[in-house]
């Protein structure tokens, strides 16, 4: 591989990390509250509101049904509004975050739902309000699951970011498609795949370590 190709590979890696990291953080910040809202408003939840739950559920399902490549294009006007351009790495973060948020919300919802009802009862019996229940029970008790789910989301985002090449976002996936696939440069293809494997393994390893440290069950 030439030094130019090598530089290209590092630049692509950086673009992938930026896209994955930024959209990941946004999806965590938005998806966790959304997951909490889904659990809290469900039947028997701490803020039972079945109609709100149905509305939220429908929105989440709606976004999750649209194939990412379609969402990428469909969200161009919104992206332009937020980032100022519809092209490039930063422009890809908007659709990536919007696709990952409902995805992550569902994963967080599952972890939050698994928190023992008895623990909520115990804190209610102490005189705790809903906010106390969220802060002291739901989030800390579900934290290992929340982190494990975030790891899954990040890995999914690494994959999804490959499609962001369609709007000129760059990244490893884009490199693999343009150089490895379209120009038959097998070396580039293999190099990209190896880098992706290392990246994904690294994310998973970090996530697993964090979960192991947080899990006191």
């Amino acid at each position, binding site marked *: 591989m030439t030094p130019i190709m090598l530089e290209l590979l590092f630049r692509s890696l950086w673009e992938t990390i930026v896209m994955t990291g930024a959209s990941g953080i946004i999806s965590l910040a938005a998806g966790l509250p959304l997951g909490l809202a889904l659990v809290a408003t469900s039947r028997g939840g701490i803020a039972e509101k079945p109609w709100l739950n149905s509305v939220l559920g429908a929105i989440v399902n709606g976004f999750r049904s649209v194939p990412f490549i379609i969402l990428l294009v469909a969200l161009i006007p919104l992206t332009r509004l937020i980032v100022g351009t519809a092209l490039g790495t930063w422009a890809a973060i908007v659709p990536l975050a919007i696709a990952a948020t409902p995805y992550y919300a569902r994963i967080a919802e599952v972890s939050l739902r698994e928190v023992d009802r008895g623990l909520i009862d*115990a*804190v209610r019996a102490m005189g705790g309000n809903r906010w106390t229940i969220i802060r002291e029970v739901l989030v800390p008790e579900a934290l290992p699951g929340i982190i494990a789910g975030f790891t899954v989301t990040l890995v999914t985002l690494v994959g999804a970011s490959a499609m962001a090449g369609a709007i000129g976002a760059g990244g490893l996936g884009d490199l693999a498609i343009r150089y490895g696939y379209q120009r038959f440069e097998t070396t580039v293809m293999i190099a990209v795949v190896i880098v992706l494997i290392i990246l994904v393994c690294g994310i998973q390893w970090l996530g697993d370590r964090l979960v192991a440290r947080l899990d006191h069950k």
Partner: protein
Amino acid sequence: MNSVVSAPTAAPPATAGEVVRLTSVKRRFGTTPALDGVSLTVRKGEILGIIGRSGAGKSTLIRCLNGLEQADSGEIHIEGRNITGLTEKDLQPLRRRIGMIFQHFNLLSAKTVEENVALPLKIEGLGKAERLKRAAELLDLVGLADKAKAYPSSLSGGQKQRVGIARALAARPALLLSDEATSALDPETTRSILVLLKDINRKLGLTILLITHEMEVVRSVADRVAVIDAGRIVEEGQVWSVFADPQAPITRSLLSGIRPQLPDYIAARLSPVSGVEQILSIDMAGPAAQGALFADLSQALPQSFRLVHGGIDHIQNQPVARFFIAVPASDAALPEKVRNFLKARGARVEVLGYDTDHA
């Protein structure tokens, strides 16, 4: 005792000395009534045991007392204040006056032991240093001072319940609710937890309401017992007197494992009409049960009788006796004589039947 929280409302004089008063409390789930008109009082400083089979309404009852469950009708007074119909927000300060311990402990796995114990104080808004100081005091009280920094998952069941008790006491409650707190523990651990509860009741003068399906729990710690069946209180009284003279069939059935019973093989061959011996049950309680009953009986009778089974138990420092004796049936006047003799000494005598095959 109570310096942190003041009572929400001063109790009216008519209810002074009562921590809890329930008046015809009803609660139904769908079409099945869980509580079908429960009236009950818990006096200050006492341990009241509520016993019943699973599904009798015990859990619903205890959860109504701190508003985890809302009653459909009736009134629930806690320290003189009616809590029925209060909103979740109004219930919150009230719940801080009531500690609760659970069958499955319900400790937060992500928090250390001391953080668990300090949580009620955090909810109350106390500073961290104060919280941890109080948590240390309480862990000392329950004998787990060395486990302050441990996580609940590293503790045994009995230790977890001790942490649960410490946590329930943190906010200096006026009432402790115990929801089957020993049901998940082995007999030895159960005993140590019950000793701790009794100890706390005496040391702190804390009123305790415990629900259980085990008579042994009631026997060893409670002052009074209320028996609940199909959502109603069917029997209520001092533990020793209910043990000595249970009225309701459900009480008798719940007591069957703990009170002497006529051995099965003898019960199986009893005839209601005739046999070699007449089998009588004798129930006595209080000072009468301490007398030289059998010596007197054998002196008074020309013929011998036979002790089949039984013994004297001591509940709340009161002797409670239950015996089964066999009297020869050959002399028709004898059984009647024995019965009169025992009744004159304050015993309850019941003819169970005739043993058809006495070896």
